[in-house]
Structure formats: C-alpha cells, structure tokens
C-alpha cells in the first residue's frame, strides 16, 4: 500500500510477497492525519537497519526514515564483514537475533575464518560480501519485517516536549520534522546518521558537502543537536578507489582461497548459501617506494591529510602509512566487490589524493600496472557526538527517549554500528513499554565492552573493536555468544525468536551435561595412553585423569575421545557444533574458572547503581576533588564499576561515592515504605470497586 505525503513517501511492499503491515495512523490522536509510531529510526545504514528491526522484534510499531530507500543496507566502504573482534560482534548481534550475520550468510562470496591457529577465543569470522546481494537481501528482510514501516525523507528537526519528571534530561523527544515540514510523532527516536552530520567529502584540495559520495549531508539535524547542547566533535575517515577487475593482472599476484568448508556467521545456519568451490578468491600485492614518493611529493595537494581534524592512532590511509612508517612495503588486498561486479576494492589503499594522482599511484603497484580507476578514493569528515553523553542503553542524558547508534557515536565499522543498532533498538522499545533498559555488561560481551568504553571513556579517534580491548576475552568467545546473550535477549528484551531461544537453551543444557560427563570419566594416564595412543599425557601424576583434561590436548577432539570411550560420549559427537564447542570449553576450562572469579568482582561493582540525577558539581555530602567531580559530571557513569574505570577517579573517590550510594539507597528505602502502603491501599480500593 502506498501513501504519498509530499516528499515523504511511504514505500511499502513493492518487494514483498508476504503480507505487509499497514501503516497505522493513530486513530485516537487529536490530529488523525499525523502518523504516530512507537519508535522512529533515522538512517538506513548498518546501525539503522538493526535498530529498526530490533525495535520491531521487541513489538514496537517502528518507522525507518531514510534519505533513499534504495540505499538501505548499502555497504559504503569495504565489501567485507567480520574479522578479528568484529566477527565476535557479529556473533553477538546474531545471538540477539540481529540481521547482519544472517544476511552475510546469504550474500558472501569468500568466507574465511582468521586466526585459525591462534585459539578459538580469537577466531575471526570474516567474509567478502557481494554488495548488491547484501543490499537486496537486507531490503527484502527490512520490508518483510512485521511492525516495521519504511519511509523516505530527510529529517530536519526534532519535536521536543516537557521531560518526564521521573527521568533525568532537560526535555523529551516526541517526534521528528521532515524537510518538507511534515511531522511524525513517536515515543522514542533513534539517530543513526553515520557520517551524514555535516558530512564533507574531500578529494585532493576539493571539498564538498556530502554524507557519502552522491548523497546529501544532514545539516539541519546537526544544528538542532548542537543547539540542544550536545558536545560535537569532528572525525575523519576514508575509502579507497575502486578498480576495474579486468584491468588487473591477477596472474602474478598471491592468491588467497576461501575456507573449505565455510563457517557461517549465524548460529541458525549450518552452512552458507554458496559452495566453497564457487567462491571468489582475493589477491595480495604490496606497495613500493614509488608509492611513497608520490605521497610525499604531493602532500600539498592533499588537504585531508593535513587537516587538523583528529585521525586515529592507527593508519587508515596509505598517506598515513607512508608518513608514519616510511621505507616499508605495505600490504594491499584486492577484494572482489561481488559475484557479477566488475570492481575490485584495494584494501589498504584508502587515499585522498587528487583523482589523476590516485591513478598514477595505483599503476605503479605490481599487478595494477594497467589498472583503471572507476571511482576515486575519498575522505569524509563528519560530526560525531561525544559518546559520554549517552547511557549504556544508548539514550542521551540530555534528551529523554532520544537514542544514538553507530558512527554518530564515534565508532567505525559496519559491525560496531550494527551492534549499537541492536542495543538502541531494543532499548528504545523497552523505553516505550516502560521496562528497565537492556544493558550488556563488559563481562557479557564485546557489545558491552564497546558501549562501556564509549560511554565512560569517550573517544577521540574512530573507535574500532579489537580483541585486545576485552579483559575477559577467553570467556567472551564467538562460539558461546548465544549462551551469553540469546537467553537474556529473550527474557529481558524480548528481541529473540522462540525458535532461536529454544535452540540456545538446548545447546546450553547439552554443553553443561557434556562437561559434567567429561568430568566424571576418570582413568589412569596409562589407560588413556592405551585408549588414545596419539596423545602424550604427562605421566608425572599418579592421579586419575579426567576425560575433560584429555580433551584439552591439541591432538584430541570429541571424535577421538568418543572412539576411545564410546559410552557415554558417542551421543555428543552427533551434533558437530556441540562436539566442537565441548572441545573449546575443555581448552579454556582452567583459565575460565579464574576468570569467573574476576567477572564476579566486576559484576558486583556494576550492580551498585549510581543515581541518575546526581549533580556531581554541586553535591555536598560527598567529598570529591574538583577534578573528579568534573570527570564524573561529564561521563555520568551509571554504576560504581563504570566510575572506577574513568581515568583520574581515585579509589578514595570511589569509596566516597559508594558511601553516598549506600546512604541514598537507605534514604530511598525509608521513603518507599510509605508509598508502598499507599499502593496497597489503592489496590484494595480498586478491588472493592470491582466487587461493587
């Protein structure tokens, strides 16, 4: 069904076969023509799509507002998903029933698990993705999601109303104003504007406003946010040129073949859509001193590199690589953009040189001597909002019911954006139904680390996920994301389908049962030697050895163990995933025990909530230094645990805060006693009424 309103156009279901939810016009509102939603998501990128579908999964009537429907699910930079750390995020997004992992399983052209030899805790699931397929599949999914409506339109302003007294924040968002002046009302609004806030594209010395090549930036919205008092910063990023596939001489380059068998991203998939032999290879080439020369000789033509806008400590562009690590050969991966795409993405060659120099530089690289540049590389500078202005549920401190997710919070990468999108979508929806927020702790997932780092420490460079950021890396593995998050997602957020929930429950109980069975099987080491001759068990101990300990050896897997002890182990080898996961659990068993203790300590600190409305600058009955006060005021940590992670907050300050929290709690408990009785009375009254 189509509903046209000015430039805002309801698009519905031209792609869909299934029944599409009707656009609801709130019939009970005073202005019946003004549409009313539970959640509005602004932006159709990786954060926006996840946020919109997550909110819809949680049962909210959701509107996705985007500049152009045909760019929903656009991969504007690299044609790949996942990697080390990022693959972990994708597994967690999938555990919360998010989209990107499932779509990647349907759209990849080259699946490979990185770090295979470095231990399952740091395996990095990664795939080259067909841009076109990804976009198609994503749009199909979005337009088929129940309760989700998609509309084209640029948002110019937010509609603000009086704040709810029981929450902090100076006002509350209740809808958006589009460029054409029309309004849409909603209970919660999620901003996922990516690089569009005052986006500026840079090639050489040319600069022009754009969110992405060919797309208009959002300037009105950026002004609105600034006027509201949000602290805005500026970041820069970039993308490499695209090269014509048939102009590259692949025959002289190193070829990288995909894994066989392919490992799917999603817990719900056993395989991916494409056979390994049908997948496309990647190629590797290197830069050379001539590349360095071109960069160094043309710095005066390269305003993006010279700009003072802070770039990251790592090297996002070939210019920064050459400047900071001179006289080295840098890797360039030539990645396919899709099955029938005639473009190649040269990963590692992000650059902002003038177009003709880009071509000149590329042609001096081995294999690319005759390469044709189809689209030049460019830099993007954009506004981001200091993420210390949002809570771990991604709601802003300043404006109630306004959520930020994705690059707007200073992150980089599709996966980081998707992870925030899911959390924002869930929380926007929970906020509408007045349920407590769904917060993933640092001890529960990479998502938790990502959001905790952002909200407590802020960031001054595009934040990227690395496994080294994660303290409990051995516990938060790609293999167990479902056990960590699916159960909570189902119970606390309601964003997980019944089917997925049941599968996770089954897996959890099977794993627990398997581990206890493995613990219960004990033989002497000599007997183990007879049973599994290929393993060298240290004979120094005369104590019996558990099957779980035998499984720790690299040479042993569940199959060989089950061959040695068929009863009762045989049944655990039937499900391949279960067998593999038991092996991983055994590998890390001893360390996990210690890590669990630490996790408990952190969780205890995180259970101690700091009051949301506390004014650190003026509060009197807690003794804090001025410096600490300012830090706390800006970051507004939600828990004692978060506060203790802010640099410069001393142990003494933490104890003072603790004391403050405890006294406040006591005071509240004392106050709550009387309202409780009131409530009881009221209930009793109601009961009487009903009886009457």
């Amino acid at each position, binding site marked *: 069904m189509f509903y046209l309103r000015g430039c805002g156009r309801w698009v519905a279901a031209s792609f869909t076969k299934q029944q599409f939810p009707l656009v609801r016009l709130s019939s009970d509102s005073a202005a019946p023509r003004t549409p009313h939603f539970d959640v509005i998501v602004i932006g159709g990128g990786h954060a926006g799509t996840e946020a919109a579908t997550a909110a819809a999964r949680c049962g909210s009537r959701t509107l996705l507002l985007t500049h152009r429907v045909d760019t929903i699910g656009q991969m504007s930079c690299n044609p790949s998903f996942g990697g*080390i750390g990022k693959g972990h995020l994708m597994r967690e997004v999938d555990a919360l029933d998010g989209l990107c992992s499932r779509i990647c399983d349907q759209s990849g052209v080259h699946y490979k698990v990185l770090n295979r030899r*470095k231990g399952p805790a*740091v395996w990095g699931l990664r795939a080259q993705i067909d841009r076109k397929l990804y976009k198609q599949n994503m749009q199909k999914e979005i337009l088929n999601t129940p309760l989700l409506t998609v509309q084209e339109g640029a948002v110019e302003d937010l509609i603000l109303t009086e704040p709810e007294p029981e929450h902090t924040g100076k006002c509350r968002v209740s809808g958006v104003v589009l460029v054409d002046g029309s309004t849409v009302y909603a209970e919660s609004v999620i901003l996922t504007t990516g690089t569009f806030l005052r986006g500026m594209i840079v090639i050489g010395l040319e600069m022009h406003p754009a969110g992405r090549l060919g797309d208009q930036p959002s300037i009105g919205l950026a002004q609105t946010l600034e006027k509201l008092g949000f602290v805005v910063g500026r970041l820069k990023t970039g993308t490499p040129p695209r090269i014509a596939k048939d102009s590259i001489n692949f025959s002289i380059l190193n070829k990288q073949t995909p894994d066989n068998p392919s490992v799917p991203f999603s817990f719900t998939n056993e395989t991916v859509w494409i056979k390994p032999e049908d997948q496309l290879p990647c190629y590797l080439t290197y830069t050379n001193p001539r590349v360095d020369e071109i960069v160094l000789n043309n710095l005066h033509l390269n305003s993006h590199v010279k700009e003072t806008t802070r770039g990251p400590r790592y090297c996002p562009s070939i210019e920064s690589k050459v400047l900071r690590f001179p006289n080295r050969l840098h890797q360039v991966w030539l990645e396919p953009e899709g099955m029938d795409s005639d473009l190649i993405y040269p990963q590692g060659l992000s650059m902002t040189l003038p177009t003709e120099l880009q071509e000149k530089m590329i042609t001096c690289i081995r294999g690319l001597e005759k390469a044709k540049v189809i689209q030049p590389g460019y830099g993007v500078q954009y506004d981001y909002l200091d993420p210390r202005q949002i809570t771990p549920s991604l709601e802003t401190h300043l404006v109630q019911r306004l959520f930020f997710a994705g690059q707007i919070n200073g992150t980089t990468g599709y996966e980081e954006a998707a992870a925030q999108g899911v959390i924002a979508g869930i929380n926007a929806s929970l906020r509408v139904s007045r349920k407590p927020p769904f917060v993933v702790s640092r001890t529960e997932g990479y998502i938790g680390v990502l959001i905790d780092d952002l909200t407590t420490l802020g960031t001054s460079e595009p934040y990227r996920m690395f496994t080294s*950021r994660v303290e409990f890396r051995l516990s938060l593995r790609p293999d167990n994301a479902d056990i960590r998050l699916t159960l909570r997602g189902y119970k606390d957020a309601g964003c997980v389908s019944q089917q997925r929930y049941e599968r996770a429950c089954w897996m959890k109980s099977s794993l627990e049962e398997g581990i206890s069975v493995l613990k219960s099987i004990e033989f002497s080491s000599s007997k183990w030697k007879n049973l599994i001759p290929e393993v060298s068990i240290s004979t120094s101990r005369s104590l019996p050895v558990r099957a779980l300990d035998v499984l720790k050896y690299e040479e042993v897997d569940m199959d060989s163990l089950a061959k040695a002890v068929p009863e009762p182990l045989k049944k655990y080898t039937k499900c391949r995933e279960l067998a593999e996961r038991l092996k991983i659990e055994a590998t890390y068993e001893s360390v996990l025990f210690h890590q669990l203790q630490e996790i408990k300590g952190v969780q205890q600190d995180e259970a101690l909530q700091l009051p949301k409305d506390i004014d650190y600058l003026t509060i009197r009955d807690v003794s804090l230094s001025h410096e600490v006060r300012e830090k706390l005021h800006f970051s507004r940590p939600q828990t004692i645990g978060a506060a203790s992670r802010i640099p410069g907050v001393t142990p003494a300050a933490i104890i003072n805060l603790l004391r403050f929290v405890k006294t406040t709690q006591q005071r509240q408990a004392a106050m709550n006693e009387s309202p409780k009785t009131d409530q009881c009375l009221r209930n009793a009254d109601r009961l009487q009424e009903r009886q009457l």
Partner: protein
Amino acid sequence: MRNSKPPLAVICTALCQARSVLSSIPYSYCQSRCARTLKIRSHVARGTTFRYTHLHRAPASLSTLHQPMEAKIFRWWAGRILRLCTRRSSGAAAPGSGATIFALSSGQGRCGIAVIRTSGPSSGHALRILTAARDLPPARHASLRLLSDPRSGEPLDRALVLWFPGPRSFTGEDCVEFHVHGGPAVVSGVLQALGSVPGLRPAEAGEFTRRAFANGKLNLTEVEGLADLIHAETEAQRRQALRQLDGELGHLCRGWAETLTKALAHVEAYIDFGEDDNLEEGVLEQADIEVRALEVALGAHLRDARRGQRLRSGAHVVVTGPPNAGKSSLVNLLSRKPVSIVSPEPGTTRDVLETPVDLAGFPVLLSDTAGLREGVGPVEQEGVRRARESCNFLATVVASVGAQSPSDSSQRLLLVLNKSDLLSPEGPGPRPDLPPHLLLSCLTGEGLDGLLEALRKELAAVCGDPSTGSPLLTRARHQHHLQGCLDALSHYKPSKDLALAAEALRVARGHLTRLTGGGGTEEILDIIFRDFCVGK
C-alpha cells in the same frame, strides 16, 4: 556479663587499634565483632573513660597527633560501640564474592600485638591451613593456636585466632583475625604464609571497607570524618607504595612491567592484526625471548628476596670509612653492647659484623665493616671487598671521617666525623669544603643525639613513617605479586593456543601493574599503533 576482665591480649589489641585509628588507618576500626564484644563488655563494665586512659598510656607516636582529630574519632568510636550494643542482630546476607584478601590491620611499628585480618570465602580454609587443624575454632571466640608456615611447616607464632563466619562479621564475608606478636619477623612470616595459600591475595587500598560497604555492613551516615579517614588510608597506602617504588626494587618493577607490556602488546598485535596487516617477521619470537629473559630475572630476584627476608627484617645501615676512624666504636655505641672488638690499631675489624638494633623505633640491621684501604693482607682485603659489596645494596650508609662516597649510586649517606674530642676548642674546625656532616665523639658521647636524629630522618625516608604505612605489608604484597607474575609467565606457551598465552601475559602484567600502577588497555593499543603499521 560473663567475663568482666578482658584478656590481656585484647587490651593490647585495643591499643594497637586505637593507635592505628589515630594514625588514620581504618582497618583498625574494622575490628572484629568478637574483639568488639569483649571490648564492649569492658566498656560497659568500666565506662568509656577506660579507653581514654589507656590511650594516654599508648606509645609515643600518639602524642604527635592533634586534638580535634582525636576527639572526632572518639565520638565516632563511642557511637559505634553504642550502636553495636543496641543493634547486635543486624547483618545482611553476604553476596558471594571473588578473592579472599588479607592485610595487616593494626598499625606498623613497635607494638605488642599485631592484628592480621582476612576476608572472603577462603578465610576458613586459610585458618585451617595455618593452624594445621581439621576443625575451625568456635565462631567468635578467641582461641590460642600455633601458627605455622604451610610450605615449610616451620612454626611462626603462638597466636590468638578468631573466626567470624559471614554474614556476622565486619565485612559480611567469612573473616579471620590473627592476633600475633608484633615483631616484624612474625608479622612478615604470617603475611607470607597467608600469601602462599591459594585464593588469597593482599588487600588493595580500602578493600575491606569497600566489602563492608558492599555488604551493607557499615551504616556510616552519622559518622563524621569518615571520608577523611578513608582518604587518609588510601593516601597513606599510595604514598607508602610510591615510597617503596622509589628505590631499586621500584626501578626493577617498572622495567619489568615495561618489558612485559611491550611483549604483551606485540602478542596482542599478532592476534588482532597478524592476518590482515603485515607485521614484521619475528614479532612473536622477539616477545618470546623477552618473556623468557624476564622469567629468569624474576626468578633470580625472588630467590634472592626470600633468602634476604629472614635476615633483614628492617632497614640495613652500614658503617664504613677508612681504618681506625672509630666505626666499631660507633657500632658498639649505637647497639649499646660490645659487638665489635675495638683497638687503637687500624684494621682491627676484618669482616662484616651485623647486629639487629632498634634505632629510633625502627628495626635496623647495623653492619660494622672493615676500614677501606689498599695494600694489606689477603684476609683484610677480602674484608674490604665485602665491606664495599655490602654498601652496594644497603639503604643507609653511615660513613665515618674522611671517607669518600663509597659507591657512585644514589644511596643515602650520612657523613660522620668521629673523634671530635680531639678538636681543640680554639684550633681550626673541620675543613670548610666538606659536604654536610655531623660531628661525633664516640669517647664522650658528644653529638650522639644529633646523629640519632639524623638517622631517624633517614630511616623514616627509607622505611616510611612507622605510624602511617606498613613496609612489611608492602613487602609481602611485592612478593605475592612478583610470585604471581612468575607463575603466570610459566603458563606462557605461544606455540599452542595464542589466546591462552596472551592471557598468561595479561595475568602476569596485572600482577606487576598492581605494584607499579597503570596497566590499562590503552597502553597496549598505544604500543601496537606505535610499533606497527596497522589500519584498515
């Protein structure tokens, strides 16, 4: 009122306690309920003035404290005790918590009884291990037990132990108190024994207090000055830690931490970027070499530290200088007993003679050495060599007349000119170009007070003020964390699961950074981005 006369030990405890409260160490007020109960009984029996009079009999360090603070703390004590009398049956359920912590709860310095406390789930286990008993003593009753080292079986002390099963304890968790004799060797021995029990670790600043807070055990709204106390505690501990880290050990620790951080950063870089970006060849191998070297260094240091621990339970002071300057006379004077043979003949002392003495309240190991001179017999030459060697690792050196600085290190040096009685009152004084010095006559005792005062200042700088910090505790902490670091490094096997290997390095680094400070992820990322060209 079963027992109106509290046992002697408890009174002593009260003294220690009061002292440490006054010296702003709040572990002191964290006295166990049992001790409190006994105290309350005594208070009820004799009134609160009891405590006050006792306090005035407490050792000298008390008198240095100013009145208002004392009054404040008294008000608080009184309030606390009264509240305890009225609300005995409070006590929230203790949530399960991680590690078991231990700390010296009484003040440092000379005291009859020192109180060492543990809190956490392994407290009972630790108590059983140290007392070699199958059963725990009755809860909240003082019982006399022989404590022995679980590793060597060597007896440590006959001590009063108190067992407080949670939640009815100060922190709400299982707690144990060891009331041991206050000698540094005993305290240090018990702390080390506790540190060797699996699952136990030294408490961090303010940790007992935090646990008590977390378990709803402290209702401190009415307590004035608590924030100050806590601040002072953490400040004192921080200062103490810094002071300890000022010396050679601190230098070593920081060096080790740096090495380890770099090795870890390189391993992390290999994990996070090894397959996408090109790292240089041999990153892992280099890290491996560094870690192995570190392991050797740490192992050697720990073996050395253990041997030294027994011998030196205090600061080491060496008297050195040219022959016949009167070094032995000075040692005899300071130790008030004839340690060394003295004679007018140069070269009487040929070996290093050590004697433990109490100098201005500090436990000190005083060494007399052979006079430094060349060209004498082989025996004396060996004595001179040993004298030089002992100067190299000692904290304070008292050099007698005319001596050059015996080593070029930044050791603390007191220059003493002996035989001032030989200076004729009207004749020329010592040469004006001499560095700052003290005049002394071992014969007449003139100038001894000045020397003692100067020594006190030096020792305070080395050991920390005995009333504010606890070098013993810090030392036990050092050893615990260094050992923990070494143990973790032994699990570093990069050839297998690299994530596990990195975890071993992380744990090891965690131990070192507990001593040196720092240790965040950002440091690691800084190194990665500094040393490697990584990016998208």
